[in-house]
């Protein structure tokens, strides 16, 4: 059981980092950005390429790769806003979503054209996982958890303790009022894109550290990331973290539970072993998404309807 919790927390870290960026962009610009998960893909490939050429021990090389990848991807976020979304500020959300979908495809297939379609992984040495309370956690898994917690903490402090964070929240709440109060909202929007894309890149790298890196990885987690953002209440940063934990727990617990006793009670089956096939893991996020849309579309922590 402890193993399930560890796996869930690692999965939640990856999802939360990307979902926070997604929900921030939504909070400020009011559209669901389908490009966001692709920042994870781009970031993971940049970090991989850098870590392969930096002449340092592998741990430090990856760290350099992470920093460079987050900066480059952050600027890529700003660039996508400048080139595409800034020109569509007055367009309906549908147009912005379609443009973001198109931009996402450009990134996914751009990555595929540069790095190929095959799966890659970080050149991590094989290490014995640490064991405690019957659960196993690999050093890279622990690194993912620590990095995610540190990033979230830093982001929380930025939002609550700095002038920039206050300006960001003001811009999200009421752009004309923020503008009237002397906040240059276009600059804030650019910073939101930078931070959001950089967090997305970090999430993608974390995903790559515990699994593999490939050009379709961003798209594969899109449903789970959106489910996390919507469950928490889209536009709410803390909600996105909560949503990520819920989605990750549901995925791992859902697969670990033997559903047979429950279904025997209802008389549907007599089988003694009934697990959800691993192939349906993403389906769990989808079911959560539909349930929350039916019951409480604004999410658990959502303010506006």
């Amino acid at each position: 059981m402890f193993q399930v919790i560890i796996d869930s927390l690692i999965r939640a870290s990856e999802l939360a980092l990307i979902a926070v960026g997604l929900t921030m962009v939504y909070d400020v610009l009011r559209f669901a950005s389908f490009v966001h998960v692709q920042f994870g893909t781009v970031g993971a490939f940049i970090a991989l390429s850098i870590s392969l050429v930096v002449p340092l021990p592998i741990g430090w090389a990856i760290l350099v790769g992470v920093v460079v990848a987050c900066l480059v991807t952050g600027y890529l976020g700003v660039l996508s806003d400048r080139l595409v979304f800034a020109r569509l500020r007055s367009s309906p959300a549908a147009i912005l979503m379609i443009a973001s979908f198109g931009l996402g495809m450009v990134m996914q297939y751009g990555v595929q054209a540069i790095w190929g379609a095959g799966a890659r992984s970080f050149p991590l040495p094989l290490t014995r996982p640490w064991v405690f309370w019957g659960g196993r956690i690999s050093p890279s898994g622990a690194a993912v958890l620590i990095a995610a917690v540190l990033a979230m903490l830093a982001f929380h402090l930025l939002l609550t303790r700095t002038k920039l964070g206050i300006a960001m929240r003001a811009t999200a709440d009421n752009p004309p009022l923020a503008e009237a109060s002397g906040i240059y909202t276009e600059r804030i929007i650019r910073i939101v894109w930078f931070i959001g894309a950089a967090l997305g890149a970090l999430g993608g790298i974390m995903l790559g550290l515990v699994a593999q890196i490939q050009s379709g990885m961003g798209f594969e987690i899109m449903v789970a990331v959106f489910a996390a953002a919507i469950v928490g209440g889209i536009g709410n940063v803390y909600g996105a973290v909560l949503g990520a934990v819920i989605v990750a727990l549901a995925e791992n617990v859902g697969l670990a539970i033997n559903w047979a006793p429950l279904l025997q009670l209802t008389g549907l089956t007599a089988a003694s072993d009934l697990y959800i096939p691993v192939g349906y893991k993403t389906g769990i996020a989808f079911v959560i998404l539909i349930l929350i849309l039916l019951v409480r579309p604004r999410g658990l922590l959502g303010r506006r309807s």
Partner: protein
Amino acid sequence: MIDFIVYLLTIVGIYGLIALSLNFQYGQTGLVNFGQVAFFMVGAYFSSIATAILGWSVGVGFVLAILAGGVLGALMALPIGDLRQDYWAIATLAAAELIRMIFLNTNLGSEYVGASYGISGIPGPFRDYFSTDAYGYFYLALVIVCVAAAYVLVTWLDRSPYGRLLKGIRESDEVARALGKDVRNARIWSLVIGGAIAAAGGSLYAHFVGFIDPRFFMPLETFLIWAMVIMGGPGNNLGALAGTLVIEVIYNSTRFIHVPSEYSATVAALRMVLIGVLIILVILYLPRGLVPERRRRYPRPERLLTPSTGDRHAA
């Protein structure tokens, strides 16, 4: 060469049906369906299961596919009928992936049929009556008849009161609600009709290529269909067909460019980058597409615009 043109036109016709369907949902009703490939997939699968596995006739498969597409449209629209477009986009995308996951994980009949093995041996309609060459022309004619029928249907709906309601919902669902219209119901029907048309395209596709597998129905397909509608001009049925032609020509253009085989994967990826860039350019610089929607103009209701406060008191 002529064989290739016949093939290309058949594919353009099949995708044209799916583009007409998306244009009906998005261009007409304003619904952002990012799971359009689901209808295509369900149409192809139901038709294939009915014919290749159950051994029923192609006509039955075709009708079943259309029904399945309509039912799927209702199922997809029911939970989100009242929600904003952001939620539509996400929920439909997720639904399409879930349906692909079900087909990817389900064996049909025997061990090596369905799931990732796909379905092979899907029969073509009236295959025995034609030689191989003539059959290509026959199938093209069949596809053209279906596209024409769908075109007439969506154009007729466009001009009907229901079509005007859909356009009203597209512009502002609150106005439609204020006039006492059932917006949720109209949206659900839009997806039912759209789903049925796209499923017909899926059925035609399955019987044309003779083999289907879940990899044919990746989210990439949804993106291509969106590219067709955006390129052609949302809201214009002729535009949807024109956009289909342009995107399919770009998509198939790598057949004409001879590249060394070690670069073919790169070129295939770059082709998608090109289509993505084109979509963004069209949105930025040609937002109404190649064939813009014709807006109907109504005479100004002068009587309502004149100040009438005095009259009201008089009445």
